[in-house]
Each structure stands twice: as C-alpha cells, then as structure tokens.
C-alpha cells in the first residue's frame, strides 16, 4: 500500500485531459436531456401521456426499462439509466485497465515497483481513481439535473454505482490475463451481460431477473420517484467483494504474469502474409464479439416472443399504441427493428476498434518492421480493413440468426440485420479515413459511434432537428423487419455502401501518401 497516493497522483495527472472530457460529456449530455425533455413535453399532461405510452411499449421496456413517474427528472432517469450504466462502466473499465494491466504489460509497473511502492499500490491507486471519477460523476450529475436535488444525486449515484462495479470487474479481469486487450474484453462482456439480462427482464416482465444485473439495480434506485438510496448499498457490497477477491489474486501472482498461465508456443511460424498476421492479431477479439452477438440475438428473439403477451393487458393506452403500430405483429416487428438497430450501432464499435487496430499497430512500432518487408502499405491496411468489414457483416448475420432462430421467421430477421450492415460499414469508413488522413485524430472515430448512439437514443424523443438526426448513417437505414419504406430498400443501402467505400478509399490513398509513425 506504500506509494498508493503517489501513484494516484500520477494516474490523475496522466488522465488530466481524458477524464475531464469524459465527465463533462456525460454531465452535459444528462443535463441537456433533462432540459430537452422540459421543452419537448412542457405540460404535465404531455408527460403523463409519454409515461403511459412508454410503459406500454415493449421496445422501450427492452431498451430503457420502465419509467416510474411523469416528473421530468424521472423521465430523464428512465431514458438515460441503462445507457449510462454501460457508458460509465466503459469509462471506468478503460481507466482501471490503463493503470493496471496496460502498465504492467508495457513494463512501466516493473519500474515503479522497484521503487518504494507496495505490491498492491497500483491496484489500489487505480480503484481509488475509479472511485474519484465516479463520485465526481455522481456529484456533477446531481448538481446539473433539475431540482429537487436529492433526485439528481440519486440518479448520479446510480450511474456511479454501475461505473464503479464495472471498474471492479475490470480490476479482477486484469489479474486473470496477461493481455490488456483480453482483460478489457472480459469487462466488456460483463457490461453486455448486465445490459442484456435486464433488457430481457424488462421486456418479458421477469421481476427477479432485474435483480441479477447491476444495471437493473441502477434502474431500481428510481430517482425522482422515491429515491431508494438503500440500493446503493448493493453496489458497495458487490464492489467490496470484487475488490477483496482482486486483492487476494494479486497477492498470488508475479509481476507481468496472469493467473491463467501462458503456455510455450510454436517454434516455427505458419503466418505467411499480411492477412494471416492481421487475422492472428484480430481473431480473438472477433470471436468474443461473435459470441456476444449470438447471445444478444437469442435474447432479443426470446424477448420478442413475450412482447405479444406484454400488451394483452386491459391497459387502453397499450391498446391504442398497438393499433397505431399495426396490430401485435407490427408491435413485435417494431421491437425487433429497434433492438437490432441498436445492436448494429454497438457493432459499429467493433468496426471502429478493428479498423483502429491499424493505428495501434503503427504507434506500437509493429507496423514499421512489416512495412520494411515486401508488404505494400495498401496490402497491410487492406488486410485489417477486410477483417473489420467482413467481421462486422458476420456479427450482424450472427445476430440475425440468433434472433431469427429464437423467435421464428429466420429469413425476415436475417434480411433485417443484413440491411444494417452498410450503416456499420460507414462507421468503419470514418475510422479508415481518419487513420489515413488524420492519424493523430483517429480515435475520434469512437466518438462518432457514441454520437450516433446518442442521436438514436435521444434524437427522436427530444425532437432534435432533422439535419442532426441525418448525420447518423443509422437514420438512413430502413426500419426492418416490417413493411418496406416508401423509397424502397435499394437506394438508401446503395448510398450507404458507396459512402463507406468512398471514405475507405480516401483513407487508403491518404495512408499511402503520409509518414509512418
């Protein structure tokens, strides 16, 4: 524990730009949503209408859960909690892995541990920084959300609880494996499972299942609708258990090693070209994503089958909504279309990660020796792009297969997810263009994914201007399954594909003309 405070100061100093940007973006976005709710639904009657419509809609239940009051704060909480549970989680996962396993793999931790720094100091500093970041998030959200402030603070604390829990999972994962990428993957899988479990629970109305997921706990805090503070104790208890387990594991292993022991590998290589190398580097990530998407597809399909039951109650609002959407069949289609499209946005995150592996290879100086061989720049870049684009298509097809098998109507559902592929490719195109033309800004492509998610989550309900919504490629994707849109399917899909191809080509050309490094 010696040196924990010094390492904490170091971590805060290293994150002095990154962390404030995360906190400011999350706070402003929450405050902005609240004020947009106020202007989009000015009267109590408007909000009561939104509340009953929202709670009658199984799609909304799957994505956001249930709203507990017609108060502006409560509606904002309903809209944001599940989404923020994941985003605050990601912020904390990246933070914890960065200061534990990444430092360890890079050999920086070894240098620090040779000074007067205790065995657990780095771990403790990372967890403390995670606590500070999430506490700051809770306070900032609490102060910027509408009065009464206890409600705002409860909402902020719910976000912080999910964030800190994910951070503790990441710290545990960092003990298990030698690779920061794998550790991040384990924590990401936890977040996906936490979101997915509560989505199934909310869509299918399975009460006990909500309590399995920490994101479900965050929803049950019910800010502005009772403020159930005691639920925060659940987060505290889980974080304490995870931290204690992490502590024990960390004491049992060597610096640099994981608990899952590394085996000796091959003495001879079979990698024959740039594509084989790219595949070797990327296959683990892709396989993990494929498993995740297959699971998500099955979950969405299972929940779709209970959507019909969901509206069988006597609630008149639900009845009206069902009628407006074209009967029970239309309701299920709308649910499927929205859920699958959300997954396609998350698939965009995979696409960006896979494309930006190029930049990772470049900054880690791995690209240099390869490009100093007979491999052309175009072949090297194309190898990673091929995996990113084909991988994206595979993710969406696996998603469609899962949902189609679980719910029925496999060809329709597969066609629906296939139609989502071009939009995700556009996101990949943005990443490729940035890598080729503005390599130092390449990570901004992940921000584009976040922006498109925000547009989808908040744009329509907050009545954002058309041009803002048009910025997202997902806005232009036909809403399938269901009746084909008036303009047909071919035009929008062709345009999206052409846009993706143009961006990618620009990236390839830019990369052939610039310096490496």
């Amino acid at each position, binding site marked *: 524990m010696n040196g924990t405070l010094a390492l904490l100061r170091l971590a805060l100093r290293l994150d002095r730009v990154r962390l404030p940007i995360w906190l400011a973006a999350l706070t402003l976005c929450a405050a902005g949503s609240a004020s947009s709710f106020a202007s989009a639904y000015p009267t109590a009657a408007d909000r009561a209408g939104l509340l009953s419509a929202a709670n009658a809609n199984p799609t909304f239940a799957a994505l956001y859960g249930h709203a507990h009051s017609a108060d502006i704060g409560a509606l904002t909480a309903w809209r944001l909690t599940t989404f923020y549970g994941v985003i605050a989680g990601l912020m904390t996962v990246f933070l914890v892995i960065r200061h534990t396993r990444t430092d360890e793999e890079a050999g920086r931790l070894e240098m620090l541990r040779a000074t007067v720094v205790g065995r657990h100091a780095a771990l403790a500093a990372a967890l403390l920084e995670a606590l500070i970041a999430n506490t700051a998030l809770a306070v900032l959200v609490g102060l910027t959300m509408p009065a009464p402030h206890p409600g705002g603070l409860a909402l902020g604390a719910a976000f912080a609880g999910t964030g800190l829990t994910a951070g503790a999972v990441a710290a545990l994962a960092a003990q298990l494996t030698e690779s920061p990428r794998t550790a991040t993957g384990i924590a990401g899988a936890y977040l996906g499972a936490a979101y997915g479990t509560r989505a199934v629970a909310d869509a299918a109305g399975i009460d006990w299942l909500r309590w399995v997921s920490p994101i479900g706990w965050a929803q049950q805090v019910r800010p502005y609708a009772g403020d159930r503070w005691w639920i925060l104790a659940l987060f505290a208890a889980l974080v304490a258990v995870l931290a204690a387990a992490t502590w024990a594991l960390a004491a049992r292993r060597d610096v640099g090693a994981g608990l899952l022991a590394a085996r000796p590998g091959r003495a001879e290589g079979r990698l024959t070209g740039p594509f084989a190398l790219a595949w070797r580097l990327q296959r683990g990530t892709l396989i993990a994503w494929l498993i995740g998407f297959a699971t998500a597809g099955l979950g969405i399909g299972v929940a779709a089958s209970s959507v019909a039951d969901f509206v069988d109650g006597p609630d008149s609002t639900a009845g009206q909504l069902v009628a407006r959407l074209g009967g029970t069949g239309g309701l299920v289609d709308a649910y499927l279309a929205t859920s699958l499209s959300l997954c396609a946005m998350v698939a965009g995150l995979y696409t960006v990660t896979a494309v930006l592996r190029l930049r990772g290879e470049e900054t880690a*100086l791995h690209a240099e020796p390869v490009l100093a061989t*007979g491999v052309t720049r175009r072949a090297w870049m194309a190898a990673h792009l091929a995996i990113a684009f084909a991988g994206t298509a595979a993710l969406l097809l696996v998603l469609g297969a899962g949902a189609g098998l679980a719910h029925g109507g496999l060809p329709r559902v597969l066609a629906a997810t296939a139609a989502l592929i071009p939009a995700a490719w556009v996101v990949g195109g943005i990443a490729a263009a940035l890598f080729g033309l503005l390599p130092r800004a390449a990570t901004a492509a992940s921000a584009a994914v976040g922006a498109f998610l925000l547009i989808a989550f908040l744009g329509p309900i907050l009545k954002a201007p058309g041009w803002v919504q048009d910025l997202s490629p997902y806005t232009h994707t036909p809403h399938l399954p269901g009746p084909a849109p008036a303009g047909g399917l071919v035009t929008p899909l062709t345009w999206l594909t052409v846009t993706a191809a143009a961006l990618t080509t620009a990236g390839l050309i830019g990369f052939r003309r610039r310096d490496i*490094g």
Partner: protein
Amino acid sequence: MTPAIEVSGLIKRFGRTTALDGLNLNVAAGEVHGFLGPNGAGKSTTIRTLLGLLRPDGGTARLLGGDPWRDAATLHRRLAYVPGDVTLWPGLTGGEVIDLLARLRGGIDPKRRADLLERFDLDPRKKARTYSKGNRQKVALIAALASVVELLILDEPTSGLDPLMEEVFRDCIAEERRNGRTVLLSSHILSEVEVLCDRVSIIRNGTTVETGTLESLRHLTRTAITAVVHQPPALDGLAGIHDLVIDGDRVTAQVDNAALGQMMSALSAAGIRALQSQPPTLEELFLRHYA
C-alpha cells in the same frame, strides 16, 4: 555495379524541426558501412526515409537503384531491416516472428535460421511478451540475418546485447561481408564500427560531417595517453602527437595510431610510473572536431 545506397542533399522536416538538413550518404554494393552519429543526429530518420516509411521534403535518395518511396515494397524484398527500437507482438512466439518477417521479405534460409538460433542462444517457443530487451533484439537480428536478401539495414543492432552476444553478432557480420552482402550499420559506438566497417559516414544535426575509409579517418581515431614519468620525456619534433601537455611529471597527449610506437619508446626512456590509454569516445570527437 549500382551503389546500394545513394543519398544526396536529403531534407526531412517534422513541423518546425528539421531532422535532416542536406544529408549525404553513399554505400557501395558489398561493403559494410558504418553510420555514426550521436543520439538524435538523424540516423533513424535517414534509415526510415530510405525504407519509404517517411517521405523526404527535399534531396534525392536511391536504394538498390530504385526510388525508396515509390518502389518501397519491391525494394524491401531485397533487404532486411532491424529497427532501433524492437517491439514485437506480445502474443506471438519468437519463432513465429522470425518466420513471419523473413517470409514477408521473400524467403528464409532454414539452415541459417537453426544455426543462428543456436549461436544467439534463443528459445523460439516463448511468447514475445516474456522476452527481455536483448532477446527481442535477437529475434529481429535472426529474422534479418536468416533472410535471403542482398542488403542489411541495422539500426543500433547491438543495443541490449551482452558482450558475448555482441561477439556473436560481430562474427555474423564478418560472415555477411565474406558472402558479399551489403550492410549499413548505424551506431553511436565508434569502437564497434571500427572493428566491423570498411567505410564510415559520420553525421551530426542532420548533415554529414565526415565520410571515408577508416584509414582516411584515422585522424579521428587517436588514442588519448596519460602518463606519469620520472623525468620530462623527449617528445619535441615527433609527428602524430597532438595536444601535448607536460605538467611536471605528468604527460597527456592525443596520439595518432601510427605514432604510438615512437611515443611509447620516448615515454619508457623517461621512465614510466603510470600509464593510461583510451580510444576517444564519439562525443569527444564531436567536441574536438565539429563543435
């Protein structure tokens, strides 16, 4: 025969800093050429420009008769490169990296690979994550030396190697020279270059300050002598002795290697009580000749 490397007036800027400022470098086919300069002189920038990884802002560069930027991949099949900072993919084993890099260049000599693995004492089954700096260096060296190529570009290749391995490396370069391969060896250690190279180029602040055979640069390789003697030695009029200072019984001087014998006889005639000799460091050379 086409020269292996012809660089003249090369300019490379990064923003406002000028890394290369009219650099010249000529390497004939079949020679082992030393590329000397202190840290930050522009050695790696020159090499990365020659590899087509950086685009020059001025001047001309020819590599194996081709344009390093335009014909990069074609030329790279004929050369092997060891970067100054070797980082490997943490999840691949050393053996996999050696085979991968050699294959991407066009081919590997399996007998030479096995021989080098043994001589450098490297376990190819370990993941690169677990290798020390010296072992990572060995992986890159073996991958380069076992490749079937005509030119080797080595950027400070002995950094991280222990003295025993440096010796193995020297033997390997001597073999390469006998086999007629061209080697560009960048270094900031003068003695290493002295042992291995036919000709050297010395650069500083992005420009070439000296180039030629070691014989013609002999004036750079004076030995610094410090001696304590019984009586003042008779050194007047001896050629090849520079910066002579006689302070009581203490004598210091820079001596050309050709004049060492005369210097020694004069000193022993004066009765040597203590003697120290050391080759000049590159830093001293720069201070003396180019400051």
